[in-house]
């Protein structure tokens, strides 16, 4: 995930989107892209190098039009280019000169969650993290069913993939107002179930609640209104059928399990 990093003072331009790189949108590719972002430095000022540690707007691991027709380029240009960008810019403005500056994004998030008594930077910090996670949750040619360990875990904890899918869709459809639906890994399950479905309001995410996120869908209206208007259930169906990157979810599950092993 994003960490505080030395960077140019301008946000990553839209042209930084990968071009025509083929259908493989796996996790490795997004990591490689993220590393490329860290090569730029802020300009020198009056003879001394002034490097301002702040958060980047990372591009998704696929071109802006790659999720068409399910999630339009138009939507991506606003959702990533305006909303996500604004969270990054506003977060940087909010934390400069405070004790939060220089901390990792996850650290800022957990500190400003403040056990539920939210501090002002929380909304921006968590939304930066949530959107990074959301782009990674999708890929061109996504959808279908998971396989391997992930499928086994889903069948074990939900009964079947279909039952999980129904629960996830229902959580996404019934999150009132703005928010997110998640598949998460519970590192300390009291009932033996490692996986669960959660829904969270506004910017809240499973990390601040003590879980490891595996998959998310953004159900703020800005995520689907241009393409689906009020028809949130249609957006959710298309997300499940055509967009989910089960590769990314599997990779995250593997990491989560190795941490508790």
């Amino acid at each position: 995930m994003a960490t505080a990093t030395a960077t140019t003072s301008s946000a990553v331009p839209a042209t930084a989107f990968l071009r025509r790189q083929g259908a493989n949108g796996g996790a490795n590719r997004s990591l490689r892209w993220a590393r490329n972002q860290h090569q730029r430095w802020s300009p020198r000022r009056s003879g001394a190098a002034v490097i301002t540690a702040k958060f980047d707007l990372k591009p998704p691991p696929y071109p802006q039009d790659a999720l068409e027709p399910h999630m339009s380029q138009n939507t991506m240009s606003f959702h990533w280019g305006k909303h996500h960008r604004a969270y990054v810019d506003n977060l940087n403005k909010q934390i400069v000169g405070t004790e939060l500056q220089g901390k990792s994004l996850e650290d800022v998030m957990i500190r400003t969650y403040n056990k539920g008594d939210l501090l002002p930077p929380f909304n921006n910090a968590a939304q930066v993290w949530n959107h990074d996670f959301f782009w990674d949750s999708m890929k061109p040619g996504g959808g279908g069913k998971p396989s391997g360990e992930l499928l086994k875990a889903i069948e074990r904890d939900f009964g079947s993939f279909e039952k999980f899918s129904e629960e996830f869709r229902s959580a996404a459809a019934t999150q009132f107002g703005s928010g997110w639906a998640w598949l998460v890994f519970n590192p300390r399950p009291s009932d033996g179930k490692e996986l669960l479905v959660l829904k969270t309001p506004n910017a809240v995410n499973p990390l601040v609640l003590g879980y490891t996120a595996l998959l998310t869908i953004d159900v703020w209206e800005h995520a689907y209104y241009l393409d689906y208007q009020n028809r949130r259930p249609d957006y959710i169906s298309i997300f499940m059928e055509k967009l989910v990157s089960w590769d990314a979810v599997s990779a995250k599950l593997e990491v989560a399990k190795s941490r508790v092993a």
Partner: protein
Amino acid sequence: MALRPLLTRRTLASASGFSSNGGITTSFRGLQTFSLPDLPYDYGALQPAISGEIMQLHHQKHHQAYITNYNKALEQLHDAMSKGDAPAVVKLQSAIKFNGGGHVNHSIFWKNLAPIQGGGGEPPKGSLGWAIDNHFGSLDALVQKMNAEGAALQGSGWVWLGVDKELKKLVVETTSNQDPLVTKGPSLVPLIGIDVWEHAYYLQYKNVRPDYLKNIWKVINWKYASELYGKECP
């Protein structure tokens, strides 16, 4: 995205079998049910401040959905109450607040708006105008304050101009999701509510909520707000 042809009919509620005057219908079980109130103007009448496409979706889809779900929740509540099922009654409270609040808030909202030819945007005169100047300094100061609070609201919600009917004081408040203004104070009466859920402006203004807030004042129905104020503060 294809634009559907704008309907000039204000509502299709009459097709549903319920009365189309936005009133209350009593079902055979003696339970009050609600129906979509007509708009007092055509969907396109608030352009360019609010597009006809938004007005039609907002009224026919969003407000209608709150009403449908509110009626369903009330029926379930009626059942739970007659069975004495306390946990079920409590569990239904959030659905009632969400959907009932949505119906209440949107019913007010349609009356808060008027086409320019119908007086939309005309500044308040009389006692409300005076109270605004007295409390906020000027109408412009009130607008700036409401716009700032509306823009800063995180997630979904409303920004309100209300009057405290006990203290006879004007207030500016925000509420989350579909919480009605009364959730911020039992003696608060809404005069003007501005919906800042993304569905209220996104198709036209996209992420630029401040532009929506700037423009909506051109179609705010101050006449209606003045009438309400006059009733609470005669």
